[in-house]
């Protein structure tokens, strides 16, 4: 599971946005807004973490159960996969 090449995350006025550069920009138009947790997940994904590691990091950083974190990560990844952003 990894983010395809060309997607860039930056914070604009504190809000995390993702847009596509280069070839990625030819298939993906527009932008995606991520909430703080999703932006963290993005960051960890881009550092090469797997789902188990990401879930652990979420439970360390936020007051949330492993079950809830796992479900949330899967929901986010499904969404990103549907958009063609992760593979």
């Amino acid at each position: 599971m990894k983010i395809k090449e060309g997607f860039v995350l930056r914070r604009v006025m504190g809000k995390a946005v993702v847009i596509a550069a280069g070839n990625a920009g030819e298939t993906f138009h527009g932008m995606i807004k991520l909430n703080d947790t999703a932006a963290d997940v993005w960051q960890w994904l881009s550092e090469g973490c797997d789902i188990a590691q990401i879930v652990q990091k979420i439970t360390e950083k936020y007051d949330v159960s492993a079950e809830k974190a796992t479900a949330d990560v899967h929901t986010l990844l499904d969404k990103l996969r549907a958009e063609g952003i992760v593979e």
Partner: protein
Amino acid sequence: MANIFGLGIADLSVEMHSRSPFVEHFCHDYLIDLPSHGVDMIAVTTEEQVDEELRAVEGTSRENAESLCLYRAIAEQLPRFDAAVFHGAAISYGDRAFLFTAPSGTGKSTHIKLWRKYLGDAVDIVNGDKPVLRLTETGVNVCSTPWAGKERWHKNRIVPLGALCLLKRGTVNRIRRADPTEHVEELLNQIYLPKNAEALGTTLELLDQLCRRVPLFVLECDISEEAVRTAFTAMTQEPYPNQTEGN
């Protein structure tokens, strides 16, 4: 046969490589001697890129397509200098610039023409379509370029940006200070997004700084003098001049 000349925009030196003499002529207000210590960037384009541009822009000439390709080559490199091409109409009043942005066809040109009509020579058009925005120590400068839309309203100047305004067509004239967080997507559509991922990241950082440094307004307006008065009063924070003549 290559035609090489120096272009000065946004306080940067560009070594331009064009095929036709048209581009140099097009850039004539911005020509500089190529500095002996090296240029900030080189702008080149390929036949393939020009072909693609010709297909994308209906009814344009090959020379004009080449000129647009060269501007894109510059735009790709501007983030290195904390700068980006922005789609909007920039005017100056006093020592500040005011930038109106909106999707093509909304009426940016019409609106800035009204400023000229009612405020006369106190207003200058810096660039009617595609100025460069460049971060300074604490603010943002609007820099003119020869690329200025079909009207080609431009004047070779660099002016500090006083306010940015999202322009919308309306039946009443009203303006409000806006929270940029609610308009990120609209602003992203108006800034040149480079193909290179690193340059794209820098462009987003630039947009963030633009939002932080410059007040954003949303203007709904018609084509009356009231439209100018409404925008002027809020954006310049100055009393509207009594003068109504001019052209």
